């Protein structure tokens, strides 16, 4: 008892005597965080800081491909979930990156005092401006006009009102992006370390951004006094800006289309996997095992999925497959039936795709196509003596002697391991799987940690930007040249003068850039999403094995249960109400 009392008084006295109110004692710098001074005074510090800025670019990269593609007429999710098989109502893809903009503004503000040579400073400033323009591009394409913040804002205790900046007009945002990228392009080097911006990355972004601005002006409507929408009279100025920026990239000769492999299909597959790629203008690199992504895990066909599970994230529609023309330039409609309506039989089911645009087979895995040595057997059922059998899952067998499903003595499968039937739903609902960007060199066991690079800007996109701007400006011969560069590399018939229309140029863009997160935004900026996606379901291709013919026949069916509808308000995203609560000067976009 006595001891306890002594201890008590010792503790009490310690508390009292150590409770001095020395202001500085606790105000020590954290030892595990670098201070601004340390970072901004060395090149290595700035490089590390720059890496964190690059990391936050709103890229719509590998993790976004499934949801963006499945929100269009490219593909659908296998999930029978209304939300995941439906499409965004304007609240799914928010990006309000003002925290990152603050970081890049901080760098831009402090660079002039950094301990570096003038040329280093100039190049780093260009890089920072490229990053900042990319951030604003991510905001502008979503929200239209948003506040343009160029300097770090600081709270001084009573300046809340000054920090609550109202929205700029949409036109001001695109003009700001254009100016920033012009400055960035003149400061950046022509060649840089892989993964860092070059002059041509800035110009490629400019050509894309100006297409968006021009489309908004031409096809959109001005609302909220210009906070969203641009005067149509401005459209040609932006088409021209896109055209000019793309032309600078083209004329430089620094980049070219990937043409290493004479086999067109293999070439278009390798294009997305080869890191030594003259077509890649700006890429995000990954390196196993330090920095990886999960594209393969999400999207591999069911039977060769990663050991971690998941698969089949993207089920391309028949419509997408038919958008790919035949090599002779005829429309890509598949030949499923004879003129009299009877089915056409294919001994080798992949013969259905003979003479298709080689990009088709490089973009999707067709039923019974081969991937990494495995035949992806998507079979919907069996025809025997004219009777169609499609019940069961991949374990259900069929007895050819009794002509009945028979799991005991059956000899052939009714439905494929990779699709259709009533088994696991984690399989394609359309008959197709995605192939683009899937790394067939990588072992299945490692598929949860992929490290192929994400190509943010590739030369083909610049050519297509150029073609679109040119056709909008009525420069038909330029549009023809650029579109034919793409078609020549792809291995399909070139267009003649009369065929170069806006529709054909857009079509080439949709096909070439399928599943690269473009279509959602392209439909949106052309303001055709609500027409393309108005209470519609798309189509699946179902292969059946015909026992008597010993061959395959194909049928089409409606894919999925849920209709897709794009609500016109989603041409602009909703500004998070939380942001409006913080800054009452922000005006919400229409109809939210």
């Amino acid at each position, binding site marked *: 008892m006595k001891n306890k009392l002594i201890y008590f008084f010792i503790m009490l006295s310690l508390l009292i005597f150590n409770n001095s109110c020395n202001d500085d004692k606790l105000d020590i710098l954290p030892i595990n965080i670098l201070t601004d001074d340390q970072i901004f005074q060395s090149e290595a510090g700035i490089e590390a800081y720059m890496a964190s800025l690059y990391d936050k670019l709103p890229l719509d990269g590998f993790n976004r491909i499934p949801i963006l593609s499945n929100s269009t007429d490219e593909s659908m999710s296998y999930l029978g979930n209304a939300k995941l098989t439906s499409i965004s109502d304007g609240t799914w893809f928010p990006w309000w990156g003002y925290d990152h903009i603050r970081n890049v503004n901080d760098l831009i503000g402090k660079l002039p005092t950094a301990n570096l040579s003038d040329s280093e400073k100039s190049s780093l400033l260009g890089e920072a401006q490229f990053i900042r323009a990319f951030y604003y591009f991510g905001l502008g394409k979503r929200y239209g006009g948003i506040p343009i913040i160029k300097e770090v804002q600081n709270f001084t205790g009573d300046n809340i009102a000054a920090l609550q900046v109202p929205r700029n007009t949409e036109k001001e945002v695109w003009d700001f992006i254009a100016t920033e990228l012009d400055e960035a392009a003149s400061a950046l080097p022509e060649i840089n370390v892989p993964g860092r911006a070059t002059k041509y990355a800035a110009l490629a972004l400019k050509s894309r951004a100006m297409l968006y601005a021009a489309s908004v002006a031409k096809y*959109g*409507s*001005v*609302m909220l006094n210009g906070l969203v*929408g641009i005067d149509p009279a401005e459209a040609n100025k932006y088409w021209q800006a896109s055209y000019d920026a793309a032309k600078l990239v083209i004329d430089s000769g620094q980049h070219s289309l990937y043409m290493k492999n004479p086999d067109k299909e293999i070439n278009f597959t390798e294009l997305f996997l080869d890191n030594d790629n003259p077509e890649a203008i700006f890429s995000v690199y990954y390196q196993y095992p330090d920095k990886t992504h999960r594209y393969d895990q999400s999207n591999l066909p069911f039977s060769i999925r990663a050991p971690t599970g998941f698969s089949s994230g993207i089920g391309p529609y028949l419509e997408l497959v038919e958008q790919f023309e035949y090599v002779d330039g005829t429309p890509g409609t598949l030949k499923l039936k004879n003129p009299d309506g009877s089915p056409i039989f294919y001994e080798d089911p992949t013969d259905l795709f003979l003479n298709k645009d080689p990009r088709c087979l490089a973009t999707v895995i067709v039923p019974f196509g081969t991937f990494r040595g495995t035949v992806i057997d998507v079979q919907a059922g069996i025809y025997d003596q004219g009777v169609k059998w499609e019940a069961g899952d991949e374990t259900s067998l069929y007895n050819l002697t009794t002509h009945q499903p028979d799991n005991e003595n059956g000899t052939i499968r009714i439905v494929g391991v990779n699709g259709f039937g009533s088994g696991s739903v984690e399989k394609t609902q359309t008959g197709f799987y995605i192939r683009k960007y899937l790394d067939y060199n990588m072992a299945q066991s490692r598929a949860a940690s992929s490290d192929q690079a994400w190509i943010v800007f590739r030369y083909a996109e610049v050519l297509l930007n150029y073609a679109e701007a040119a056709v909008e400006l009525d420069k038909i011969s330029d549009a023809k040249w650029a579109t034919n560069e793409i078609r020549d590399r792809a291995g399909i018939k070139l267009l003649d003068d009369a065929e170069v229309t806006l529709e054909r140029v857009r079509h080439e863009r949709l096909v070439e850039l399928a599943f690269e997160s473009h279509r959602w935004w392209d439909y949106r900026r052309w303001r055709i999403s*609500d027409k393309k996606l*108005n*209470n519609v379901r798309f189509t699946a291709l179902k292969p059946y094995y015909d026992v008597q013919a010993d061959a395959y026949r194909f049928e089409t069916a409606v894919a999925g249960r849920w209709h897709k*509808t794009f*609500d*016109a*308000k989603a041409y602009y995203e909703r500004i998070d*109400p939380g942001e*409006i*609560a913080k800054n*009452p000067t922000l005006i*919400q976009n*229409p*109809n939210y």
Partner: protein
Amino acid sequence: MTLKKILFLLIMGAFFASCEIYNFAEPNGAIYGSLMDNITNETLQSEQPEGFNIKLYEEGGRMNSPIIFSGKPDGTFENAWIFQNEYKVIPTEGAFFPVDTAVVKVGDRTEVNFTVTPFLAVTNVSVEAGSGKITSSYKIVRSQIGDKIVERKTLVSKVPTSNNVVFDFKSQTDLSETDDADILATQYTDEVTDLTSGKYYVRIAVRTDNGLNKYNYSKVFPVTIP
């Protein structure tokens, strides 16, 4: 043992008896009304959701975020769960030209009506059911010139809700290349075919090139295909 029980009860008592019931009264005001279409002199035909919205700005409200709720397809609206107070009320984001804000003292259940000028109206409508098909006939009119008229549709639905996103069959015609004067002078006829027998709900939808792609609708016509 008893001591433990007593202690337990004391603690529980302290736990639950800490504060008095502290709560606000729930909202007990209501606002309702309708939008009158000044061409047809009936309520404005619309859709739900997103047909049109009512925005309420509460007097003395701290934030600038209004209370927003959707109107009903027949052009009426009601919100029976707001506080009794003075509000600025504005119907917006519908297929009509902007209207003036009304200032309304909302009480127990307060009616407020608006007259709106729709972008377009559908008049002179007749819908006939044939064998396996539906024929609609109608005229597009307007009282104020706005954006270009771009589209007309006859929507056929198996459920009474029939609008631009809820339909099973449709006939759709692009009018963007047709002169407005010609459009307004024409009595249009649409035919929707390949229908099985049964009950259907038919509605005409027409649209100008307005920023939010809002449609003006006819009433819903129930028909039965023999």
